[in-house]
């Protein structure tokens, strides 16, 4: 049997791929096209009734505007061209003497038609080019983010895996270990595995933000309930660190994806425990603040550790912490960058600073109002 062949030359396939999106048909574009046309026609009829002199020079102008708007608002060339054809026919048929007849007799008919076609094609070209450029810029930004993330993740995964493989090798090959040594190694393996779980949860969060494309799946949640679980998990994992939650008198309801917001606080707390430099207590306080664009729920996470290196502070959420010397310590870079991604996707802010009396302070602000125009 020979190789399976396409029933048409390969060059066709390429060309089809380019053509299809430009002549794509959508109900929305169709509606836009016909509504604009109907509005223009009605406007012309209305003006004709008002105007006693029966001067119809504005008709061509209005239809030109219709063609321009259609080309501007729809995808590809098709509807712009269609509007041009319909516009010329309408001008000829309904608004030029003799009325209600397609006569092709107006002076300058071909010129009107050509101008309309030109406007339509040029507008379509410009808008689609601008759209493509914007899409390309978004794509580039996304790729950059994915690349950063992958780099951080591969590091965050490799380190604990090395630990696990090493410790298991020792356990399998060394028979003369003391029970304490064995237990110590097993504890390390357990910790590394727990760490890997964290990394995976963060990756899941990213896909959850990314997969819903335009919108997060938000619901109204009580902030104190969402914060409680990460705190209690943290207390179990780090019994030596005192965690304290301060809840305001009134209940704060915030529109959010609760699992994602929980991930934010899990990461902030873990970050404090790992990079805080021997912290003994961490407090999570909630309150409500008023900003120019509405009310925000604010959560402040404070620890009593060594604080954040001032050099790293400006780039702490970029996901590239450690960078050149990243192999020294477990990297929480991905955790903090995930925090920022999640908070921003909610239309909120996150910031970090050092407290004057020592220790780090992270603030998360989430809007308490559902945004309507989020894209």
């Amino acid at each position, binding site marked *: 049997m020979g190789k399976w062949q396409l029933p048409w030359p390969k060059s066709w396939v390429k060309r089809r791929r380019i053509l299809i999106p430009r002549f794509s048909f959508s109900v929305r574009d169709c509606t836009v096209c016909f509504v604009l046309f109907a509005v223009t026609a009605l406007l012309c009829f209305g003006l004709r009734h008002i105007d006693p002199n029966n001067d119809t020079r504005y008709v061509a102008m209005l239809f030109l505007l219709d063609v321009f708007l259609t080309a501007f608002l729809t995808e590809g060339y098709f509807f712009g061209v269609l509007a041009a054809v319909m516009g010329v026919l309408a001008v000829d048929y309904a608004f030029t003497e003799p009325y209600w007849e397609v006569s092709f007799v107006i002076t300058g008919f071909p010129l009107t038609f050509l101008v309309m076609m030109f406007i339509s094609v040029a507008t379509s070209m410009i808008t689609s080019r601008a759209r493509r450029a914007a899409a390309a810029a978004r794509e580039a930004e996304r790729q950059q983010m994915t690349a950063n993330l992958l780099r951080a993740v591969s590091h965050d995964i490799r380190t604990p895996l090395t630990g696990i493989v090493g410790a298991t090798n020792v356990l399998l090959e060394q028979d003369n270990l003391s029970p304490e040594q064995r237990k110590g190694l097993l504890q390390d393996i357990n910790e590394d595995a727990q760490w890997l779980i964290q990394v995976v949860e963060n990756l899941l969060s990213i896909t959850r933000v990314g997969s819903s494309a335009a919108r997060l799946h938000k619901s109204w949640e*009580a902030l104190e309930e969402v914060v409680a679980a990460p705190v209690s998990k943290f207390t179990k994992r780090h019994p030596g660190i005192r965690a304290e939650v301060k809840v305001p008198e009134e209940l704060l309801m915030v529109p959010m994806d609760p699992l994602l917001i929980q991930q934010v606080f899990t990461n902030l707390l873990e970050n404090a425990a790992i990079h805080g430099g021997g912290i003994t207590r961490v407090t999570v306080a*909630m309150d409500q603040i008023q900003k120019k664009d509405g009310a925000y729920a604010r959560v402040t996470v404070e620890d009593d550790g060594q604080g954040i290196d001032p050099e790293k502070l400006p780039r702490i959420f970029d996901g590239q912490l450690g960078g050149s010397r990243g192999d020294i310590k477990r990297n929480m870079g991905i955790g903090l960058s995930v925090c920022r991604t999640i908070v921003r996707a909610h239309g909120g802010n996150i910031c970090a600073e050092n407290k004057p009396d020592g220790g780090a302070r992270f603030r998360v602000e989430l809007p308490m109002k559902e945004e309507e125009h989020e894209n």
Partner: protein
Amino acid sequence: MKIKDKVLIVEDEQRISNFISVILTANGYDTIVVRSGEEALTMIASHCPDLIVLDLGLPDMDGMEVLRSVRKWSNLPVVVVSARQHEQDKVEALDCGADDYLVKPFGTSELLARIRAAIRHTRTSLDNSQIAQSGKFTTGELTIDYDKHQVLLRGENAKLTVNEYKIVALLGKYAGKVLTYDFIIRELWGPKARSDNQILRVNMANIRRKIEDNPGQPQYIFTEVGVGYRMREGD
């Protein structure tokens, strides 16, 4: 001799079923391990286990189908263990009659606690035995007095409103088990109530401010975010 409870483990991943089986045997249960939904259904019919640990991702069918077909004829406790962590999956499984839902990876102590709770609930025909005997439910310093319709904290009346009491009483009746928002709303306000859980959240916030020392770190009523609430196990 004490008769051991028999647990059927439905899990296709051998490493996971292995460790579950080991930990359950060590804690005084008999275990049977099966790897597919088809096998599970036969074994349930022939062996009458006391509890099923059910994985949702099975090679031959969705674990939810196993759950649904079991629920057609039996009240046998089912603890779902699954890698699906979305709230929607949890709510669906719980509403289909699962007694509990654990997301992988889970700790062994957590699994044991959930299994104990699930078995106990079924033994006492969904009513807490403690309540049946004394008309009271006690956990820590919290007591729900079902005869007097009161909730006491360290012996003092917590002064809950009627609705707040109803919520706490319901959670106490199923202590240790997650009750979904929809379930609580249906039980309290009837099947036609709008499943708007805002009112429930507000009530819960008020309850917590009355019975918890710190509402931000609850000791008695825990939130399963996006799913529902769970009361701490009775003493």
